[in-house]
């Protein structure tokens, strides 16, 4: 874990879970697996606080525990999972585009709570949806359940590891949770009947009232344990990443060629969703006939046109689609790793262009194409005067976008008899840029927190005024009184608030956008790691 990543983890934990969890989490990320008493000693917090913080981290899948051979329990943080907190808005929005408001709220509740049983999630979401509906209408549990089942079928949510069915011998210090691969997405048979409830105490429906009152008084304890007790669900982030990757590939094809070819690629990816493993370099081969049958209903292109498109895609130098055989009208696959590499390279190129200028970008693209070039060759191919070319190359070299490769002519590596070739090492540059992205996000978050802290007094004042206004409006006040309350905030203060809001929004939007770059680079780097 680099310093930048640790800093970012600690900022994210502090913002979402508070200082205590941040101290414990940062220590775990920094120091690796630790037993409980080391945590208490090193963080300087009390035992109770450390226990609570660990419970929170374990609940949200940000930490795990294991039983090492020498006994006791060790806790370990999952740093890359902590960094995913940046991407939560993107997950929720993707769920919205795929499954509507119900899906969006289900994923949001699961992310807010880490893991939940299906019944609890369905109940909460039904209540939330009922709040937003017009008076008198409530959300049925069955609708929410069916959306949940659909989410599980497409593997967007998965089961958490379970307690073993039969107790194995004397209970140890910690349970060993097991997860059967086949059971990961099976939804338990539940008999969830009911409708969502509103939170307000004045209920329009008669039968809802006594039930609602009982719930407030007793809390959860008096109700019988739900049928799916012990079966917890969590969001399957890997599947969301696959979805984002597919989206990126489709939009890249659309930019490079046209809408129809992007639809063809989208169809191919959709057909390979369940048959392709997550880390596979290319999808399973699909025949042209199959693709023709699976095209969306609106597209009525003929078979010959489809074949022409596929041939064009396969011949494209970017090699998103490859032809792997001729049976069935031609067997085609989508080259996932090559596509990720192209996306990452395009990101690198655009960063060089924006940072150094278009001439530097020309040299960069030249080096990508020709792999290794000498100083003189660079000047000739790029058609840039020697002095400027030299300066640009050295600038890029100092920022580690470009590397120098030495090829000695003699075994003594004498500098006068050695070739020095410039080259671009794409995985290394990608890693360097990823590190820079983490630093950027950390800087953005710090700046946003600083801005909010500077204007804390003003923000509190405006919140109080809003609360007063809302309560006065609810009780029915005249316009003159409302006007008076509004004038409590002076005009320059209002301007200050406006500019603060604008800045905070800008910083937040920047964080979201940097996270998109982080996603592309991370996916590429993951694809280059060879699994043992």
């Amino acid at each position, binding site marked *: 874990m680099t310093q930048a990543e640790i800093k970012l983890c600690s900022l994210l934990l502090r913002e979402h879970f508070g200082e*205590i969890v941040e101290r414990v989490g940062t220590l775990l990320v920094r120091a690796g697996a630790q037993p409980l008493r080391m945590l208490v000693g090193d963080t300087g917090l009390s*035992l109770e606080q450390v226990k609570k913080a660990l419970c929170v981290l374990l*609940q949200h899948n940000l930490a795990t525990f294991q039983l090492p051979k020498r006994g006791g329990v060790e806790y370990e943080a999952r740093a890359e999972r902590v960094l995913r907190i940046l991407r939560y808005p993107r997950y929720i929005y993707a769920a919205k585009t795929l499954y509507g408001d119900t899906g969006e709220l289900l994923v949001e509740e699961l992310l807010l709570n880490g893991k939940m049983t299906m019944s609890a999630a369905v109940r909460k979401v039904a209540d939330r949806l009922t709040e937003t509906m017009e008076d008198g209408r409530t959300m049925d549990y069955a609708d929410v359940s069916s959306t949940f089942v659909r989410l599980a079928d497409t593997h967007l949510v998965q089961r958490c590891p379970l307690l073993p069915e039969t107790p194995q011998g004397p209970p140890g*210090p*910690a349970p060993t949770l097991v997860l059967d691969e086949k059971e990961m997405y099976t939804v338990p048979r539940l008999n969830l009947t009911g409708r969502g409830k509103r939170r307000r105490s004045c209920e329009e429906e008669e039968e809802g009232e006594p039930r609602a009152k009982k719930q407030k008084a007793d809390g959860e304890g008096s109700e019988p344990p739900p049928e799916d007790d012990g079966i917890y669900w969590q969001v399957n982030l890997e599947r969301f990443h696959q979805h984002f990757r597919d989206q990126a590939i489709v939009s890249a094809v659309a930019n490079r060629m046209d809408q129809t070819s992007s639809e063809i690629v989208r169809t191919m990816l959709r057909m390979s969703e369940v048959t392709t493993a997550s880390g596979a370099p290319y999808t399973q081969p699909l025949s042209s006939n199959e693709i023709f049958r699976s095209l969306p209903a609106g597209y009525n292109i003929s078979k010959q046109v489809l074949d022409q498109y596929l041939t064009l895609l396969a011949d494209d130098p970017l090699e998103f689609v490859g032809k792997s055989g001729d049976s069935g009208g031609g067997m085609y696959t989508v080259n996932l790793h090559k596509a990720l590499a192209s996306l990452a390279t395009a990101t690198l190129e655009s960063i060089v262009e924006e*940072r150094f200028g278009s001439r530097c970008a020309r040299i960069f693209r030249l080096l990508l194409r020709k792999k290794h070039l000498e100083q003189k060759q660079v*000047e000739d191919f790029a058609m840039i005067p020697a002095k400027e070319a030299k300066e640009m190359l050295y600038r890029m070299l100092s920022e580690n976008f470009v590397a120098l490769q030495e090829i000695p002519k003699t075994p003594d590596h004498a500098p006068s008899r*050695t070739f020095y070739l410039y080259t671009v090492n794409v995985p290394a540059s990608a890693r360097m840029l990823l590190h820079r992205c983490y630093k950027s996000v950390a800087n953005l978050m710090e700046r946003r927190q600083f801005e909010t802290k500077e204007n804390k007094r003003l923000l509190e004042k405006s919140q109080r005024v809003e609360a007063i206004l809302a309560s006065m409006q609810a009780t029915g006040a005249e316009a003159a009184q409302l006007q008076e309350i509004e004038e409590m905030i002076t005009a320059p203060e209002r301007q200050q608030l406006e500019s603060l809001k604008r800045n905070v929004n800008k910083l937040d939007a920047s964080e979201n956008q940097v996270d998109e770059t982080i996603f592309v680079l991370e996916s590429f780097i993951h694809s280059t790691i060879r699994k043992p």
Partner: protein
Amino acid sequence: MAGSGRGRGRAAFTFNIEAIGFSKGASLPDAVCKPPPPFPSTDNKPVPLKTGEDEDYMLALKQDFRGTMKKMPYFLAVEEEREAIERYSKKYQSREKEHAAWTPDWRRLPREMKPRKKMKKASAKPRKANSSDPKSNLDVLKKIEELEKKDDEEEKSEDEKDKTKDKEGEDDDEAEEPEEYDEEEHEEENDYISSYFEDGDDFGAGSDDNMDEATY
């Protein structure tokens, strides 16, 4: 001799300087004497942010999520200093927070995570006995017996727990610490400082076993 670097009083490089692109006799750029500035001026300004419906919605989602997380029971804030003036609204705010407290599923967590409840239950009993019964000698004796029994119970339960927890000895110290603290909290409310007289310490007059001897 050869290549000593001071031939005819002029510097010479060990390699052909043409290879890196400097023509013979051209001036080399200035050597860098200090680290680069922390905020260098950028000639190329960054591209403006993406704007659109999607981005606006995701921005709103992000801010909402942050706000909601702060209100969840998972957000453990360090308790702030007591305010100078007790606000009336605090009475209602704190009750809401208690209502939303969260208990994890203890079956899925290691056993050491569960907060130790034994102390509070055991000490609640003598407390109730204290307040309900009128003070009399018999009751005082009974109470002393109960306290002795409570100590024995704690010793036994502690031993059991220690065997099942880590085998190292450091755990004993840790197990004792919260217990000692709780004891001090839950002892009788009289004017005596409970830490003044430790169990087993001799202070001034030693053990008054033999009352016949006069103490000086």
